[in-house]
């Protein structure tokens, strides 16, 4: 009963209100307030590989790769394309890089950029027939496509069939792979945020909110959507190509459900719509999954349990929760 007499009141912190405007330059404190949430995580991420042992560095690469997939998911979601098939992007990139290296012996300097671009184009081309679908229907097609490709590889035996292509070229030094992953991830994160805040992103978001009105504004939404697919696809393909060379192996399991579902889980955990949430979510989920390996057989079950509990408790996502705490304070007020 008592709860009904009170309510929570949220107010912006003073420093937030002050630094919201251009007067932020007025004091170092305010500049710090603005820059800290951006620079501290970046600095940590860049310094971390120097202090970790080799196994945890692998985990870091894994986290960055899932991070890239989560970012590409969030990017598509920002223009109303709800995808469940990030593994399509991942797998295409992985196979392009792998095949180029295996059959034509091209070095990684060539395969990764080519796989990134070609992967993006291919993703856009493959998904263009279903671009007009919305919501759960688009999700279903994207969920099925990688599974379909996986079965095709299995059935026809192209690209090594069930055995995959192995002994591919690796990176000359492990640190190179790690920093490539981290930098790729960070660039993607800030680039996507930038794009979404520019006019270009405004149109994409408008497509999500009300595609009819965008169409009536004389803008071809399908062309825009295919551009978005290209960008998201390129990010995913980059992740796939990186993974291929990092493990010197590519196989049909790059189309596995894990690569589709985990990024979505990361976004659900971190909070959609801001990219930072997606990044944060994958930085939490992947190390968590590795830490749980000590538990053996129950690992995935507990992992799912934690995921469920955190989504139920914080349906808005971790990032939104943290951002609110950072910018606002709360107090309980009596209802008059």
């Amino acid at each position, binding site marked *: 009963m008592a709860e009904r007499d009170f309510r929570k009141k949220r107010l912006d912190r003073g420093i937030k209100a002050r630094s919201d405007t251009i007067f932020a330059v007025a004091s170092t404190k305010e500049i710090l307030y603005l820059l800290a949430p951006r620079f501290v995580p970046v600095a940590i991420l860049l310094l971390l590989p120097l202090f970790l042992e080799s196994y945890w560095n692998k985990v870091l690469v894994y986290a960055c790769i899932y991070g890239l997939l989560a970012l590409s998911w969030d990017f598509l979601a920002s223009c109303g394309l709800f995808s469940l098939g990030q593994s399509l992007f991942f797998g295409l990139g992985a196979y392009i890089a792998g095949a180029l290296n295996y059959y034509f012996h091209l070095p990684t300097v060539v395969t990764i950029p080519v796989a990134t671009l070609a992967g993006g184009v291919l993703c856009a081309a493959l998904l263009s027939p279903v671009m007009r679908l*919305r919501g759960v229907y688009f999700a279903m097609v994207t969920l099925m496509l990688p*599974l379909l490709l996986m079965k095709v590889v299995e*059935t026809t035996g192209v690209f090594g069939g069930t055995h995959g292509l192995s002994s591919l070229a690796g990176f000359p030094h492990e640190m190179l792979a790690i920093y490539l992953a981290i930098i790729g991830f960070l660039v993607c994160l800030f680039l996507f945020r930038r794009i979404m805040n520019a006019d270009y992103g405004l149109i994409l978001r408008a497509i999500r909110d009300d595609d009819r009105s965008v169409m009536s504004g004389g803008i071809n939404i399908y062309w825009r959507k295919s551009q978005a697919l290209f960008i998201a696809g390129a990010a995913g393909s980059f992740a796939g190509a990186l993974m291929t060379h990092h493990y010197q192996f590519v196989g049909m399991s790059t189309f596995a459900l894990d690569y589709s579902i985990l990024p979505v889980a990361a976004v659900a955990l971190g909070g959609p719509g801001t990219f930072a949430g997606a990044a944060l979510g994958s930085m939490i989920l992947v190390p968590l999954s590795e830490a749980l390996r000590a538990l053996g057989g129950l690992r*995935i079950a507990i992992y799912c349990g934690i995921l469920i509990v955190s*989504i139920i408790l914080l349906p808005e996502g971790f990032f939104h929760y943290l951002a609110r705490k950072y910018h606002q304070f709360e107090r309980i007020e009596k209802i008059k």
Partner: protein
Amino acid sequence: MSLLIYGLINSVILALYTVGFSLTYGISGIANFAHGALYILSGFAAWTFMNAAGLPFWLSGILAVLISAIIGFVFYWVLLLRLRGIPLAELIVTFAAGVAILELLTWKGFYGIRYSLPVLVRGGVEIFGVGIDYQRFIVLACGVFLVVGLWLFVHHTRIGLAFRAMAQNERTALSIGIESDWIGSLSLAFGAALAAVAAMVVLPLGVMESTIGYEVLIYALAVAIVGGLESTLGMIAGSFLIGYGQIAAARYIGAKWMIIVPLAAIVFVLAVRPSGLFGKFKELEERV
């Protein structure tokens, strides 16, 4: 002839996989991604009742169906209540719950060839020169019974009509005194129970393994999408299309193409006719 008969049986199996999923989605709009997990869970539950408690198959079957229904009901109140209306969270939570169930099953040691439900009647007959076992007849009968029964239930009972009201317009349903949470949780319970019923008749055909959970989910999605998510007729049509497609592909192209058929069917149908074969109500505005 055998193509006709086995195609029919295959289609009915697919319809059985789908009927629960489609019911839940049709009513409350929740895509229950734990559907496959509940399916296989009830299979293992029945096995446990039979082998650990020594109950007869029919009794353990009924118990398993009840358990599955209760789990579905509890799912709604524990997992989904706070998340209604956030499709992303709904999907991830049900999927994670499903995976958790499957993982717990494997962890408890439920894998391997010893786990197999018995068929109700052993043996088989020949019809038009095609040998069929009795269990497949039971599957057939059960499939027809369920679909017809469901149709009658939804169109001619109080709860059924409330279900339909919810499906058509949740707010209006609320305003005439249909409690949406109650109906939503019932819809999950019914869906889960139907998954368990399907498990009881289909699983005796082979052995049980937790990976079946994923497979059932994929097939259920495939059929539901191809047919149109909300129509019973569409679901039947979808399962026949995929069911016969699979058997025909196995016969004329090569057996390994069987699994590709449903996947290709989805992609093709959605690209050509986005509302599914028989999607009616929510046709264009929602899908395209």
